[in-house]
């Protein structure tokens, strides 16, 4: 059993969000803070476009919100609920700018592929070759470790190379950088969404992986949480850790 959460990573001015959120009248219920995450009930009279709700209004949706400094993460069972909350409630209350994070998805995919190619092409004579860096070269030391424990499992890309004849391509698998069909497509696409898989090994030591997080160019986040409270808490921590790493590597702007 699991739940899927999706929403957005948002930037604003430091401290602007901390004061704005308590003023939002349609957020009800005692905020329950677990490791910095607040669970709210978002009560609305209107039907949120393209979200099916049973019964008569008011409609109640769950929101998970985490803020700190100039960053805000808003999650719910559907990203449209978050979009509605941001545009209808949060933006009008925030006197300052509020924008969805720009996640350099294409650059992230490219950097992970380049790192894999470097590893695959490494020969004993090339031991002193410098591995490729992420966008922020200052965090290059952590980049090999990141690539050892993560891989790409999903990629959705747009292409403008063929004058409209082909417009979108989607790839899904356990380890996309190892697939030549995927890597040879790179010059004619730009990735919009990608999925990062965490590498694991089972109790017998066989390698495996699970999808930890999907990211979109316009700050979109989506992940699956286990139903158990402990499992959920762990997954939130893992996702936050991944986002922090991507921020250090320069992929979140």
């Amino acid at each position, binding site marked *: 059993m699991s739940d899927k959460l999706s929403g957005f990573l948002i930037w604003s001015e430091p401290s602007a969000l901390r004061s704005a959120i308590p003023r939002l009248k349609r957020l009800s219920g005692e905020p329950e803070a677990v490791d910095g995450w607040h669970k709210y009930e978002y009560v609305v009279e209107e039907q949120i476009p393209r979200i099916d709700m049973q019964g008569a209004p008011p409609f109640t949706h769950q929101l998970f919100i985490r803020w700190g400094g100039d960053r805000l993460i808003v999650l719910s069972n559907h990203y449209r609920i978050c979009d509605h909350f941001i545009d209808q409630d949060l933006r009008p209350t925030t006197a300052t700018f509020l*924008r969805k994070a*720009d996640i350099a998805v294409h650059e992230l995919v490219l950097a992970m592929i380049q790192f894999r190619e470097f590893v695959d092409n490494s020969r004993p004579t090339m031991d002193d070759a410098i591995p490729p860096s992420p966008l922020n070269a200052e965090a290059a030391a952590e980049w090999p470790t990141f690539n050892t424990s993560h891989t790409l499992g999903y990629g959705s890309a747009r292409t*403008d*190379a063929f*004058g*409209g004849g082909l417009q979108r391509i989607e790839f899904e698998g356990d380890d996309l950088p190892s697939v030549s069909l995927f890597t040879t497509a790179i*010059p*004619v*696409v730009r990735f*919009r969404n990608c999925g990062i898989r965490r590498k694991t090994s089972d109790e017998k030591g066989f390698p495996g992986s699970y999808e930890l997080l999907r990211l979109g160019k316009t700050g979109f986040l989506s992940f699956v949480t286990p139903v158990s409270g402990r499992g959920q808490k762990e997954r939130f921590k893992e996702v936050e850790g991944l986002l922090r790493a991507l921020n250090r590597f320069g992929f979140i702007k």
Partner: protein
Amino acid sequence: MRLKGGGSLLVLHSAASGAKEVELVASLSAVLPDWNGRDRVSPLFEIDTIQSKSPFQFKPGVAFLFFMGPVNPARAESCLRSLKGKNDRAWLSFGLFNLVVYTTSRVGYRSLLGWAEQQGVRWEKWDLHGPKVTADSHSPVTSAKPSGLLESLSRLRFHAPLPELRDAGEEYCALLAAAGCRSSEVDSQITTELEQANSIITESALNHFSSGKNGRDLPAIALLVDANAALSRFTSQMFSGMPPIQETECHFWTHSLLGTGVANLAVLKVRRFITLTLGEARIPDQISALEDVTDEALIKEVLEDGHLWNGPLLQRLPEITGRKPLLRELPPLAPLITYLSGRDGYHTTQTSLSAPLNILTSCSSLRWSLLTITHEMSHRVIDEVLSYILPDPGEPTELSKATDLLNEGRKPPNVLAALQFKILHSMATLNAAAPLIALPDVASEQDLIALMGTRREEVEEIMVHVFDFLYFYGADPEVYVPAIWRSWDAIPSLHRRLPGYVLRTLCAVYGKFWLSSTSAQDALAAVRAGMEEVAKTDRTNVYIHDAVNFLNKESEALRKQLLLRRTLVGIVRTFLQSPAIVQSVRGQSTKADRSRANYFDATPIENPLRFIESNTSAQSNATKSLWMLARLAFDTSDPDPLRVKDIHQ
């Protein structure tokens, strides 16, 4: 942060006594009756704040007027909290000091200074008493200097018999030294580009000069004079309005106070994007590599319009040439010097790229769209491609071989020569249909010079249109046809040239329908649909109705004319097109940029060309134009230079 909408003019009145006074007016006509030669002016656009609901006036007593920049308006959000008094205001300007703030309180003034220093933003402050300027001060001027550039300019000598060359050379050195010094205070990347431009311009000028041939110093003079014209305007427009503002006058007179640095920066960013994507693809160099392709079967395919013409060939070039790196040593590309000009409009030369002054008020409209830059940049590519394919009229050996080729006295020895034959043959066919010269069955070298002299311009123009359509408009006639016909409305006296412009449109769009069994009819239908769309929605368009009538009345004649130019379309579509390069130029990961007009939130612009396409419409709006220019100037990040496997590696 959001612009309120609607602009006003900040006027600095300077009396003969030296007394200075500021005034904010709705239009120039309000102040012209009392104008004097020292007065200066610049437009300002108000930022939406709590105070901006009431009309503005300079408050009697002490106040402060701040000029700050260059700063991304989205970053300026936090400084607006310093505005407390009911008369306090903030505006955006076109100058590099693009944030202008008026405050009546000393607390507000200290807070603004603190913000500027914390953010590393340069500033100038005018102390006011009512509208009178009582004192001014500014942030410290950096001591940074482009020592390498200055050193290299000091070594430059043109020991020429012609005084014109010496004069042009000295002017060039003084101008570039000023531009380099001023840019080093603002943006080191601009200084680096000026250094690159200098080494390419001086090398080219010295090559002309030292070649020892008669008359070769004339091209050197022309090159330097051209560079001087661009540098002079670039420096005046970009760096005026910087401290001390009152002493740096911009020669674009409606912007004489603060200059147009933001617009210049926007054009520079667009140019830089195209250079790093399309430019770095080095299409002309790739085409020159066709000289090494001597496979007889391929040459035959080219000559006889075989299957090879069915798809883009450029990306197959490494395979065709045996997968060796095509471009081993790549000299840096010349960074074109960008400037605004009312006279030159959109125009490129070997050293410069200009955009019309009208973009300042109207770049949000298709009539003055910044996308026209792509047409000019396409000229740079096609001009260089043709210089590789066609013989140099000044080189007798090349001319003799080309004449033999045209007379079918010899077979093309390689694919490049086959393309030369196809283009020369097209020129001869066009001449046969509408003779401009008497071309005998067996042409002489002089005939060939005359043929190229009368047809090269048309050939280049058609190829540029096809190239622009395929690379920058995604081969989409619904976007392309209305865009170019709206922009052509700004060209004076187009009436007598309308048939040529209709034909160019058809040639470009024909590139999309190349493989269709009814390609000419399809192109005619797509062009007609696009032009009728303009005629229906743009009632003030001077030419479109005549153009549509011409297209409808002369469609059969146009179809024949189009087919005479088919080979030229095919050369661009087949030999100059590569999906990977199209992707680098036009690709973006989101479908359309949904930026909210007049809002600044620092969202990076992934592809400036697609940003312009998404935000340009039939309507002209000055506030939106400033917003577009500021977004392009501050939110466009440079792409990684294009590196195509098997070409660059």
